[in-house]
C-alpha cells in the first residue's frame, strides 16, 4: 500500500515536471531559431560554410533521388515523344535545311572574322573551360530560387562562376562544397547581374524578384528600352564574362522593364559552369603586368589557361 502510494506520488509529480520540461524545451528551441536568424545576419560566411558542408554531406543521397526522378520524367517524356515522332520528323527536316543555310553563312563569317582579326592584330578573349554538372536539387519557389549541382571544388567549381544551359545564363555559383555547388538563379531576389541591352549597348542591372521575369534596374535616365531588345552580360565587375546571352525585353511598363530569360533551368537536367580563369566576386584575380604578354595569376599561384 505504502509502495503504491509513493509510486502514485512520483507519477503525480513526474507529469507536471515533464510538462514543464517540454514547455521549456519548446521555448528554448523557438528562441534558438530566432538566434539562428540573427546569427545568419552577423556571420553569414560561417552560416554559408555550415550550409555548404551539410549539402555536401547529403549530395550522394540527392544524387540518387534526383536520378530516380529524372529517369521517371525521361520515361514519361519518351512516351510523349514517341507519339509525336512523325510530326516532329517533318519539322526537323525543315529546320535542318534552314540550319544548313545558317551554317554556310556562319562559316563564311568565321573566315571573314579571322581575316579582320589578323588585320587588327586582335588579342582574343580567354577561352572558357566548361564544367558540366547535373542538377540534383531545385529549390526554386516563392521565397528562394537556387539549384544544387553535383560538382564542387573537386571539379574546380568556384564561387562566382557563371552557370549556363545551351540557351543562356541561369545564374551564378553562390556556394561551393567539395562535391556540390549552389547556383543562385538570376530570378532570385538577391541576384544582381550587370548586363547590356543590345544593339544600343545600354548598361543596366538585371535584378531578380522571385518571379519568372526579372527586371532591369539602374538604367541611365532618359533612355527608352524597346520590347524585344536582346540582353547579354556586360562583364562589368569581373563576375561574368561579357556577351553571355541572358534574355530579351518582355515588357516595358513605365519604369518597370521585365525580361524573359532565354534559359529555363526547368528544361535542363544538366548545366555548364563556365570557368574563365577569373575567380568571380570572392577572390578577385591579381593582375601581373608583363611587357610581352599579359598573364593572369590566380590566387594560390595557379596560372590560368590564357590563350
Amino acid at each position: 500500500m505504502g509502495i503504491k502510494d509513493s509510486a502514485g506520488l512520483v507519477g503525480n509529480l513526474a507529469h507536471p515536471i515533464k510538462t514543464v520540461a517540454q514547455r521549456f524545451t519548446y521555448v528554448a528551441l523557438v528562441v534558438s531559431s530566432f538566434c539562428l536568424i540573427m546569427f545568419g545576419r552577423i556571420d553569414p560566411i560561417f552560416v554559408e560554410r555550415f550550409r555548404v558542408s551539410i549539402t555536401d554531406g547529403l549530395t550522394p543521397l540527392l544524387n540518387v533521388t534526383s536520378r530516380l526522378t529524372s529517369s521517371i520524367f525521361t520515361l514519361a517524356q519518351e512516351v510523349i515523344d514517341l507519339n509525336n515522332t512523325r510530326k516532329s520528323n517533318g519539322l526537323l527536316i525543315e529546320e535542318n535545311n534552314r540550319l544548313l543555310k545558317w551554317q554556310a553563312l556562319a562559316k563564311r563569317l568565321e573566315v571573314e572574322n579571322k581575316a579582320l582579326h589578323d588585320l587588327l592584330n586582335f588579342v582574343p578573349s580567354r577561352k572558357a573551360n566548361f564544367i558540366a554538372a547535373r542538377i540534383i536539387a531545385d529549390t526554386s519557389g516563392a521565397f528562394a530560387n537556387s539549384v544544387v549541382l553535383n560538382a564542387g571544388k573537386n571539379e574546380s567549381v568556384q564561387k562566382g562562376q557563371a552557370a549556363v544551359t545551351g540557351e543562356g545564363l541561369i545564374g551564378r555559383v553562390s556556394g561551393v562544397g567539395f562535391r556540390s555547388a549552389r547556383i543562385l538563379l538570376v530570378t532570385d531576389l538577391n541576384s544582381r547581374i550587370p548586363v547590356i541591352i543590345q544593339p544600343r549597348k545600354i548598361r543596366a542591372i538585371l535584378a531578380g524578384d522571385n518571379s519568372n521575369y526579372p527586371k532591369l534596374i539602374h538604367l541611365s535616365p532618359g533612355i527608352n528600352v524597346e520590347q524585344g531588345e536582346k540582353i547579354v552580360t556586360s562583364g562589368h565587375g569581373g563576375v561574368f564574362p561579357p556577351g553571355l546571352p541572358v534574355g530579351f525585353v518582355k515588357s516595358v511598363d513605365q519604369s518597370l522593364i521585365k525580361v524573359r530569360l532565354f534559359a529555363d533551368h526547368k528544361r535542363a537536367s544538366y548545366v555548364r559552369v563556365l570557368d574563365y580563369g577569373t575567380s568571380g566576386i570572392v577572390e578577385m584575380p591579381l593582375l601581373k603586368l608583363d611587357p610581352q604578354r599579359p598573364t593572369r595569376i590566380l590566387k594560390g599561384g595557379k596560372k590560368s589557361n590564357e590563350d
Partner: protein
Amino acid sequence: MKTSTWPLAGNLIMRVSPFIITLCLVLASILPIYIQGYPGVLPLLTLMGVFHWAVYKPALLPAYSVFFIGLIHDILHGFPLGVNTVVFLIIFGVVTSQHRFFFGKSFTVVWIGFGIVLAGSILMIWILMSLLNSTLIKVPIILFQYILTLGLYPVLGWCLLRWQKFLLKRV
C-alpha cells in the same frame, strides 16, 4: 516467431516513421521536376508533414525533431537559417495546443484547420523573408503556392493516415 517480432519492429517503425517521413518530404520538396511550362513553385510538403503529425501523433514528432527538420529544410532550400525552423515550431506549438479541438474530427475539419495554419505560416515566412531581404516579396506566387499546397494536402494526408493505420494494426 513472426507474431512476437512484428509488434516490436512495428513499434519501432511507428516511433521513427513520422520523423523519417517528414525528412523524406524535405528531400522530395527539392527534387528537380522536368515539366515544361511548370511555374516552378512546389507545394510546401514539409509543412504538410509537420502539421499532420502535430495533429495525429504529436508525441512521435517532438519539438526537437521539428527543429531539426526545419533546420535541414532551411539549409537545403537556401533560406536564411532559422526562418522555416521557427515557423514549423510555431505551427507545432499552435496545433498541439489545439489537440483537443482536432481530436476525433472529420478530415474536412482538419483540412480547413490546415488551410488556416498554412495561411498563417506563409504569412510568417513572408514577413520574415521580406524583413531579412528589406523588400516586399511578390504575393501572386505565394498565393499560387498556398492554393497548390492546400489542394494537395488531402492526397498526402490520406497517404499518411493509411500508413498510420497500417502500422497501428500491427503494433
